[in-house]
Structures are given as structure tokens and as C-alpha cells.
């Protein structure tokens, strides 16, 4: 740039800066003008308004709606939280009052300094919280000694309480303080109340608007230093609505505790016609009260780094290869493709495809197998042969129809999709063509296939209910449990599956449980009329090398926990008039027949004994079931 050019640009710059400067002066004049208008011309008017500005308002938080089980047992309720409050100007000596108070109710040094700091910050007539969560005895003691405790008073507000703690925490979630991002998303002024809690997870989050209710408002008059003179109007808020869930808390409790005999796992029980989720457990779980109180970072670290995943709801967000339970889908796909279920395949314990060898779980083989034989024995070779004949796309189509590979739309945040692979999927995500060997592996529920326990429960429900596209849900009704009407006929559409095919698959499942040498025969139900029909599954999480196979496959007990097989079991009952479906997954539990099936059996016995779908809450009630 030559000298002249640089002078030109500098001239343009200066000229324009001056121009903009003129604009800035104009804007400043507007500012000064406005100040003059407000503070000189209109000042008297505003002085009067300020004088009248004596009406202050305060929001009244509504009480949060209860969450109830299907019979009206409260799963989340509000407990009164008794607090000791202190009004500084009413006590001659604050320190002494606190000392006296601490003799009745122990206070830590931290709590004491917090009170003193709070006092320094607020005005003398504002109440300060001294101590929360007082017990009944403490309240009584303080009340009796009130004359000796000038300035102290007892006040009560509400606190969320979960009577069943960790048993319901994965479903209910918890409430906790409002965060910065909650405020940005939700304009409700209630959120700005100090100490207000909102749903952060689970049903508490899903149905937040229903449960929260509407704020009330109190308008009161204050004098010129701000002391409250009297309340002018009081408009009560609208309390949050109660919600009745589909859960049967007795069954939920049983399921959770039965499952807790293993290290980590999930179980779902649902009504195969209505889609009511009767129990949904994931172990280990966490204590929701700790979240409401606020976790220390140490506690949080411990929860996050726990290898058994207490923060994950494994029933909806745990994704596992379904293992042999997936053979139900392979069977249906084969039937749809015109395979004759009586036709047999010979299992010698291994089958070859090109250079690769595919092994049956039973080294010695199963011999001649038809379809229901193969389901009963969980014969891998039979399904390898079916897979080879019909291809992966036919299997994937059937699996998707039965609810696998996509979220079921349960009314709970955090549900995972799982994965049902097919040719198009592999080409799109890996850019590689599908290999036939993969068809064989996926047909027995290994390889790419991923499902959640909830999806497997839906799958077996649809098999058991005659092919209706039932969907699971947790919300039964808003309002009073006694008002819930009996369930009407199922309104889910038929999926158009031939009932003969379903009968064959159910027969296979019946033979699994109720015929000698069926894979789950030892976990059958022997109570007449309650028999279950199921399918076992053990999904491998590691690769068995040729070398290991020749040495002898290592037993699960000899492997580190996180390399053991997942144990799965899906079932419905009663076998001849199905009503309930159940899925149990035990993470790295070993074998489906030895670990998962006994749990499912016990759950289904308890479920049929309680028979929650047919029990009428209006007659039996449920309120006597409080723990």
C-alpha cells in the first residue's frame, strides 16, 4: 500500500469515526433526556408510587402429587419437614440462644457458623433456618422449651419421601434442586423459589408437569422498612395431581429382592394384554433420598465408578445380546418363510460353512431335531440351518415386528433402542457387505444383536397374547386409585401373524420348561394351573478361540466376572391361558437355565399368586400393604 492509499483509508476512518461519534452523542442525549424525564419531570409521581409500593408478594408452593401403585399404595409421598427457625431481633443474645438450642438438638460446628453467616446477611426480622429434619421428639422438646429459647420457632414444609427407597428408585427417579439449565427451559416462577425441588429422573421427571401443580400467591403489606404488617389476599395454589402407576409394589418388592441375590441384573414383568408394567427392577440401585439431599463428590464418584452400574436402569437402558431367547424370532421367521416345523435337521454338534465351523453349545450334538425339539434343547445347529435357508433380512423383519431394535416408547426417560442388524444396516454403518457366517451367529442372538430386557419382555408378550402389538406403559391414570376403572378389552392392533406359527413357538417354550430334559425343566412351576413356558439364553461376551475350544472351553466359574456370559430367561404364564410375561437378565450371571430361570420362576409364581391384573382394588384395597 503506498503512502497516498494509506492516507485515504485513514481519512475515511477518521471521518466515519466522527460520524458515528455524532450518533453516539445522540444516543447519550436520549439517555440523559430519559433520566431527566424519570427523575425530574415525573419524579413526584414515582415517589408516590414508591410510597405505595408496600404490597409484596410471595409464591406459595403447591404440594407435589403422589405417585401410587395400581392399588393406591404410595410410592412417593410428601413428608412434613419440621424446621427450627430463628428470628434474630427477638433474641437478646443470639449466641446464647443457639447454645441452649444445641443442648436439645445437637448441632455441628458447620451448622452453627452457617446460621451466623446467614444472620449477618439478612435483616433482623427475617426468619433463618437453624436446623431441618427434626424428629418428633426433638420438635416436642423444642416446643416445651420455647419460653427459654427466644426467637426460635418451629415451622413445617414438605419433603419428598420414597417409602420403598432403592426398590423403586430406577422407576420413580428422584427430585432435586433446580439447575441453571432447568431455569432456562422452564419459565414457571415456582422454579425460582429457594429450596424448590423438581423431578430429575424417572417418573418424577416424565410426569413433572402433572405432579408439580400450580403456584399459589400471597400478597401482603409491608411497612417502610419491609416488615410484614398483614396478609392482604391469599390465593391457594393448585396441588399437583396424584398419578396411579401400573406397578404392583408387592410384586416389585419381591422382584427386586429376588434379583438382588445376584450381583447385577434386570427383570420386567408385564401384563401381555394391557401392557401394564407390573414390576421393573434393576440391581443394584441407589438411594433416591441421597440425591434429594445432594450428593458429596465422593459419593458421586463411588456411584459413577461402580462396575455394577447402580445408576443405570438396566431394564430399559441395558443392552445385551439376547442369546438363545432370540431363537423364538428365528423360528417365527422360518415359519413365515414356509419352513415345515416337523421337518428335521441332524445336529452332530458342529456345522461347517465354507472354512468356518459353527459349534452347537452341546459338543456331542442333539441328533435329529424338529423345530419344537430344537427350541426345547436350544439346539444351535438347527437354527444355523434355518438361518442359512432364510437369510438375515427375514429374521430382522420378524424381530422388529416383535418390538426389538427400537425403543418401546415406555413412559420413562432413558430407554435405549438396542440393535437388530440386517444387510442394509451393515452397509450403512460399516461400509462392508454382509457375510453369511454373521447370519448364523446373529440367528442365535449373538454378534451384533442387542436388546433390552424390556424389549425381550414385550417380545414374549406378543408371542403369548396371540400376536397383538402390545406396548408397555407405567402410567395407569391420573387422580385417585379408587376411581380407576377396570381395564377394558385390549386395544392393541393385531400384527397379522398366523396363530398356528405362534402355537408352534409356544409349544416349543412349553417343552423347554415342562418336558423332561428341557433346558429349563429344573425351573418349572409345579403348582397346577400356574405352569410357565419359557426360553433360556446365555449370551457370550467374549470370543472363544480355536485353541481354547481344542483345550476345552473354560467354565464360567473360572472366568473373571465381566467375561462371564449374561444369563437370560423369558417366559409367560400360565402356559394354557397366558396373562403375564417376564424377562430376567443377570449380567455375567453364567447360564440362563441355571441362574436366570429360577429367578423368573419365583417371580412368576409370586405374580400369579398376587394376580394383580385381575384383582379389583375397590374390593380388596391395598392400603394395608404399607411396609
Amino acid at each position: 500500500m503506498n503512502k497516498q492509499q494509506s492516507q485515504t483509508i485513514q481519512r475515511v476512518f477518521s471521518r466515519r469515526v466522527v460520524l458515528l461519534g455524532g450518533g453516539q452523542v445522540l444516543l447519550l442525549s436520549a439517555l440523559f433526556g430519559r433520566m431527566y424525564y424519570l427523575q425530574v419531570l415525573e419524579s413526584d409521581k414515582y415517589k408516590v408510587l414508591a410510597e405505595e409500593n408496600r404490597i409484596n408478594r410471595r409464591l406459595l408452593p403447591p404440594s407435589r402429587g403422589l405417585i401410587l401403585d395400581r392399588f393406591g399404595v404410595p410410592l412417593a409421598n410428601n413428608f412434613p419437614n419440621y424446621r427450627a427457625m430463628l428470628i434474630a431481633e427477638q433474641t437478646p443474645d443470639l449466641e446464647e440462644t443457639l447454645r441452649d438450642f444445641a443442648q436439645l438438638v445437637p448441632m455441628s460446628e458447620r451448622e452453627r457458623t452457617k446460621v451466623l453467616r446467614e444472620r449477618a446477611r439478612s435483616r433482623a426480622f427475617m426468619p433463618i433456618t437453624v436446623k431441618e429434619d427434626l424428629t418428633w421428639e426433638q420438635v416436642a422438646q423444642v416446643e416445651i422449651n420455647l419460653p427459654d429459647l427466644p426467637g426460635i420457632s418451629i415451622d413445617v414444609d414438605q419433603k419428598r419421601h420414597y417409602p420403598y427407597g432403592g426398590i423403586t428408585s430406577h422407576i420413580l427417579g428422584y427430585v432435586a434442586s433446580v439447575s441453571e439449565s432447568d431455569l432456562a427451559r422452564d419459565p414457571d416462577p415456582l422454579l425460582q423459589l429457594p429450596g424448590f425441588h423438581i423431578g430429575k429422573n424417572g417418573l418424577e421427571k416424565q410426569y413433572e408437569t402433572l405432579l408439580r401443580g400450580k403456584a399459589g400467591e400471597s400478597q401482603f403489606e409491608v411497612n417502610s422498612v419491609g416488615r410484614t404488617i398483614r396478609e392482604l389476599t391469599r390465593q391457594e395454589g393448585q396441588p399437583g395431581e396424584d398419578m396411579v402407576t401400573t406397578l404392583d409394589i408387592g410384586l416389585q418388592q419381591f422382584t427386586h429382592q429376588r434379583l438382588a441375590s445376584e450381583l447385577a441384573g434386570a427383570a420386567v414383568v408385564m401384563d401381555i394384554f394391557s401392557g401394564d408394567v407390573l414390576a421393573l427392577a434393576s440391581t443394584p440401585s441407589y438411594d433416591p433420598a441421597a440425591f434429594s439431599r445432594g450428593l458429596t463428590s465422593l459419593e458421586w464418584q463411588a456411584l459413577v465408578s461402580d462396575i455394577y452400574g447402580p445408576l443405570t436402569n438396566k431394564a430399559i437402558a441395558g443392552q445385551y445380546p439376547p442369546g438363545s431367547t432370540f431363537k423364538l424370532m428365528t423360528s417365527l421367521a422360518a415359519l413365515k418363510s414356509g419352513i415345515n416345523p416337523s421337518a428335521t435337521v441332524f445336529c452332530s454338534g458342529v456345522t461347517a460353512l465354507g472354512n468356518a465351523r459353527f459349534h452347537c453349545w452341546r459338543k456331542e450334538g442333539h441328533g435329529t431335531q424338529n423345530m419344537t425339539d430344537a427350541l426345547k434343547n436350544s439346539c444351535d445347529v438347527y437354527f444355523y440351518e434355518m438361518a442359512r435357508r432364510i437369510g438375515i433380512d427375514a429374521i430382522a423383519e420378524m424381530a422388529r415386528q416383535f418390538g426389538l431394535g427400537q425403543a418401546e416408547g415406555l413412559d420413562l426417560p432413558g430407554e435405549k433402542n438396542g440393535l437388530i442388524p440386517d444387510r442394509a444396516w451393515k452397509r450403512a454403518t460399516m461400509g462392508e457387505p454382509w457375510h453369511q457366517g454373521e447370519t448364523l451367529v446373529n440367528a442365535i442372538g449373538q454378534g451384533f444383536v442387542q436388546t433390552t430386557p424390556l424389549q425381550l419382555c414385550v417380545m414374549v408378550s406378543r408371542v403369548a397374547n396371540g400376536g397383538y402389538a402390545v406396548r408397555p406403559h407405567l402410567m395407569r391414570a391420573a387422580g385417585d386409585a379408587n376411581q380407576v376403572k377396570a381395564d377394558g378389552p385390549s386395544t392393541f392392533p393385531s400384527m397379522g401373524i398366523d396363530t398356528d406359527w405362534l402355537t408352534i413357538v409356544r409349544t416349543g417354550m412349553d417343552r423347554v420348561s415342562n418336558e423332561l430334559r428341557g433346558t429349563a425343566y429344573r425351573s418349572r412351576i409345579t403348582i397346577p394351573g400356574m405352569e410357565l413356558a419359557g426360553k433360556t439364553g446365555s449370551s457370550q461376551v467374549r470370543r472363544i478361540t480355536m485353541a481354547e475350544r481344542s483345550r476345552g472351553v473354560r467354565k464360567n466359574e473360572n472366568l473373571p466376572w465381566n467375561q462371564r456370559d449374561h444369563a437370560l430367561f423369558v417366559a409367560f404364564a400360565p402356559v394354557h391361558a397366558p396373562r403375564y410375561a417376564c424377562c430376567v437378565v443377570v449380567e455375567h450371571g453364567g447360564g440362563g437355565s441355571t441362574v436366570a430361570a429360577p429367578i423368573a420362576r419365583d417371580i412368576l409364581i409370586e405374580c400369579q399368586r398376587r394376580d394383580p391384573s385381575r384383582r379389583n382394588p375397590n374390593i380388596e384395597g391395598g392400603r394395608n400393604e404399607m411396609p
Partner: protein
Amino acid sequence: MVLQLHTARGPRKMTIGTKLRNVTWSMVLVICAVASIGFAMLYSAAHGSYDPWMDRQMARFGIGLVMMLAIAMVDLRSLMKIAYPLYAIAFVLLIYVDVAGEIGMGAQRWIDLKVIQLQPSEIMKIALVLALARYFHGFTYEDMKRPMVLIIPTLMALLPTGLVLKQPDLGTALMLTMVGGAIFFVAGVRWWKFAVVFAIAIAGAYFAWNSDLLHDYQKKRVLTFLDPSQDALGAGYHITQSKIALGSGGVFGKGFLQGSQSHLDFLPERQTDFIFTMFAEEFGMVGGVVLVGLYSLLVLYGIVIALRSRSHFGRLLAYGLSANLFLYFFINTAMVMGLIPVVGIPLPLISYGGTAMMTVMIGFGLIISVYVHRDMRLGRRNGDDE
């Protein structure tokens, strides 16, 4: 070597001592005066207590002051070199908060660094000015005619604006656009182009209003501004109360710690966005005029420094930053007086808050650096001599 050529021709390389003597200490004094008013107001906002705001704000200002002087020592050539990288970093951080916000499902403006909360949109305010000054440096008035020249800087200004708008932070987006526009104007972009853009903006605003690009609460703020009485206890409450507090202050105010409206909690957010109201309630119109005068003086310092700089980069940088400061305090004061809608912009140096304080101090540091290095000549390309 290029550098030696420069030292032979240009001013001698300055020592830190020389540089420190060249700092506009009178300006630093004004900055301290304004900050002190802020401390007093935070003391008052806490009903006459150092805790919880004043002590922390003082610590931040102390750090800011050191940072400002350190930055003032950095010469323009180095500033020019970091202009683009800094812009790139700010841009990536903005995208990061947007994505993180998407995942957290809600508005996200901060990156939590444990010690401080980093607000990328604040960094962008500085980075954009630096990058635009760096870009326009070396273009002649003739060059500015060519539309091709303007494509890159337009994108440079609009992309971050879009990201900030998405957060959603209307106030900051508005400031980025206006500061960008001011730099374009003084850099010599032709008049008629502004007319065209203005027309398009009006059409765009009309479109945005009728689509769902604006959040409901943002629309509500505009509507409330047009008629506060419509919603006297809701969103209009802030502005109505602010006007009452201001107006009742009168000419001389109610006196320090005596602002009844502020202290009885009628005035919302008195330690942040509405702190000017409390000041004007306690010190009246006289106080208000003095404070606005002090701010104007600081802006004027920036403008004069810009006019005296021998490099175009320095000129644009100092001007852009002073325009930024002007908009900052103008938007805030005009907002609390009910001249423009409430957009949530703090009052620089006075409102309680860490990131805004740091950005403002960094801005002052850069302006002072332009003054200290006012005689430095910069080459057309990357700051080295031609």
C-alpha cells in the same frame, strides 16, 4: 532479516519500563473510579455487607487490573498473530457449548472449568474485534469496494452471532452484530451496502417474528417493553419496578444504603443487570449523569487512541473495543430506564459477575496496548514489514 529492517526504520524496540511510562494512567484511574462505584453498590446491594458480592468482586477486579496491564505490554504485531487463532478457539468453544447444551437439553452458555465458568460468547466479543481488525488491516479504500473482500468478514461476524442466538442469548448476539457493523463502517465499507443490509434485516425480523425462531419468552420481552402495564406482575414487573425506583430517586437521590425500593426487594436482580437502577435511586440523577459521563470518557479515550494509532490494525482494534464498551453500558442503562427491551446485558465493571469483568478488562488492556504501540508500523500481510 525482516525484523532488523523494521527496527532500523521504525521506532526503537521499547523496554517494559518505557512501555509502562506510556500507559494512559489517567484512563486507568477512571477505570478504577468506575469499579469503585461498583464496589460501593455491591456493598449496598447486600444491605451494607462485604459478603457475598463486594469482596469477591474486588478480588476479580484486582486480577483483572494485572491482566489488563500485562496485555497492554503485548505489542501489536503479536496481537495480530494471535487474532485468527484466538477467533478459531472462541468459535470452537461456542460450538462446543451449543452441542453440550443440545445434549443437556437446554440453554447452555458456560463451560465449567471448576475454578471459573468460561463463557465463550464473552471471549467471542473480543476475538471478533481482533479478527476483523486483523482482516481489514492492509486493505485500501479501493479494495473495500470489491464485494469479494467482504464475504469472509461477513461470515466471521455472522457465524458466531448465529451460534450465540441459538444458545439463546439475544443480547450478546445483538452486540456482536452491532460491533461487527461498526467495524465494517469505519473500515470503509460503502454506505449503500449498509442500507441494503438494513432493509434485509427488517424483512428478516418480520419473518423471525412470524416463525418460531424466537423463544416465547423473548417475544414476550419485546411485547412487555412496548406495553409494560399489560403484565404488571409478570415480565413487566422488572421494568415497572425499575422505573419506580429510578424516578423516586429524584435529582439528588435517597442517599447511600437508603434506596428503599432496592432494599425492600422490589427491585429484582439489583446486584447484576439492574444495579444502575439502585445507583440512580440512591444517588439520583446527579449520580447517574456522573456515571454515564465516566463511561463516555472511557469510550472517548478509546476513540482518541484509535485516531492516534499509526497502524490500521490498531485503529480498528481500539475503535471496535470502545464501540463494544459503548454498547455495553448504553444497552444496560437504556434497558433499565425502559428505553429498550430487557435483553440481559450487565453493566460493565459494576454488575456482579466474573466473566464480564474479565472481558471488559482484557478489552481495556488491548486499547492501552494500541496506545503504547501507537507509532508501530505494521506490514500489510501478517504484521511484519513489507
